[in-house]
């Protein structure tokens, strides 16, 4: 059993059997995390750097915890406070870190394709922790893991991604993964936040009416409005967005069926989702975070022997 890839750059490059291998390995790591001693020695010979050129709470902590639970040595790098502000390039920064004998790189960058560029120039295994508006593969994997845990299987499930599809790397990774796993996928949101040719490009459904989308689906993955990536006005105000596309208790009661709610975080309460929905029983937001550590342990474990150990 091996992954077909040396790096995890995106879900796009993975085969279905890679995805299944990661998810089944994650199931066993989830059990490890229930033990009195939540740690295994598998990666004690491995050093991993977490290279964060963009802010992060969950992903960064989750990766760091996953690395520590696997007994790896970890280094944390954030662009602010580093020599990046003195003008050092990405490749120079990484090569300098690697010369200190680092085996794996977990990277988040605001430029789409940054980890792909890096993978062509350095020998270490690279895990994409989010690149611009391109992909966030571990988030899609943990979303899939959480849906499987709650609903049993992905095949044939109707899953809607709600909100800022245009700027969301979570959306893109989720679409790739869910399509490969045989789920039915829909994106829903205002026309200004949905790429024009997405229906043709991915063979998915597009819906501009949130209530209709929720009536159709079994699972709704509500995405954050990525204000930091929007450089033009795409909707008039947050309040208006909330009225038209916010998932509220009232809306859920009106559709009269129990759907599972996911959100990759951080949650803008009162914008894309209301507090009473985010904190309700049908939301599995905190389970997603819990599962994130197990899924990332699986990814790190499965990629750890892809380097040339002597």
């Amino acid at each position, binding site marked *: 059993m091996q992954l077909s890839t040396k790096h995890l750059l995106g879900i796009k490059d993975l085969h279905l059997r890679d995805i299944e291998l990661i998810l089944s390995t994650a199931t066993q*790591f989830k059990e490890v995390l229930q033990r*009195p001693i939540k740690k295994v*020695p598998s990666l004690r*010979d491995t050093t991993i750097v977490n290279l964060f050129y963009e802010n992060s709470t969950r992903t960064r902590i989750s990766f760091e915890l996953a690395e520590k639970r696997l007994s790896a040595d970890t280094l944390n790098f954030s662009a602010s406070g580093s020599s990046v502000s003195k003008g050092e390039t990405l490749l120079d920064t990484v090569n300098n870190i690697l010369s200190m004998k680092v085996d794996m790189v977990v990277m988040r960058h605001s430029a789409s394709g940054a980890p792909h560029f890096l993978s062509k120039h350095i020998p270490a295994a690279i895990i994409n922790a989010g690149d611009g508006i391109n992909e966030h593969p571990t988030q899609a994997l943990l979303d899939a893991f959480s849906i499987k845990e709650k609903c049993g299987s992905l095949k044939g499930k109707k899953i809607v991604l709600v909100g800022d599809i245009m700027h969301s790397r979570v959306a893109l990774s989720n679409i790739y993964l869910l399509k490969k796993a045989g789920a039915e996928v829909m994106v829903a949101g205002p026309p200004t936040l949905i790429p024009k040719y997405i229906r043709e490009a991915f063979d998915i459904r597009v819906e501009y009416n949130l209530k209709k989308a929720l009536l159709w689906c079994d699972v709704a993955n509500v995405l954050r409005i990525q204000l930091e990536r929007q450089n033009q006005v795409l909707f008039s105000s947050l309040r208006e967005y909330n009225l038209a596309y916010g998932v509220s208790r009232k809306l859920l009661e009106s559709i009269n069926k129990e759907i599972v709610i996911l959100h990759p975080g951080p949650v803008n309460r009162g914008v894309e989702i209301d507090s009473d929905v985010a904190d309700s029983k049908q939301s599995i937001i905190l389970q997603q975070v819990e599962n994130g550590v197990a899924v990332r342990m699986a990814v790190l474990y499965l990629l750890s022997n892809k380097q040339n150990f002597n």
Partner: protein
Amino acid sequence: MKTILDKYQLQITIERLAYQLIENYSDLSSLVIIGIQPRGIYLSDKIFEQLKKIVPDKVIPYGKMDITFYRDDIRKELHSPNQTNISFSIEDKNVVLIDDVLYTGRTIRAALDALLAFGRPKKVELCVLINRRYSRQLPIQPDYCGKAIDSLISQKVKVEWDKEHVVLY
């Protein structure tokens, strides 16, 4: 191919191993048995069934443990993990680890490491169906043994549960 244990011998060996456990732990209150994944669990299932038959009124905690993440050959080859299910405390208990074939001893070394993540047992013992003598790479010996055999490194011992026999290739 040579048969080491046939169907009848396999059955009475399993019965004997179960009786030996009862003999050693007369009140059974501190006994815990743990089968080692992936292949040890077939033997542990059989021994557990046998124990239930002999002492139906006793509750013996029974778990299964996977040792994949504790292996020392992880850089040579990655193995698929299997399910671990230990839903009880092993603190201060007498733990009997069960595996089918004892060969180099490396699996048991990993199992001892893995076991400590669940607590500090009072004592750990090892029960195996087949002990391949003179092939150990670590100082590990069984406490309960179905049958000890001498074999060459090039040979393979296979416990075939579907055919209910043990053979040497």
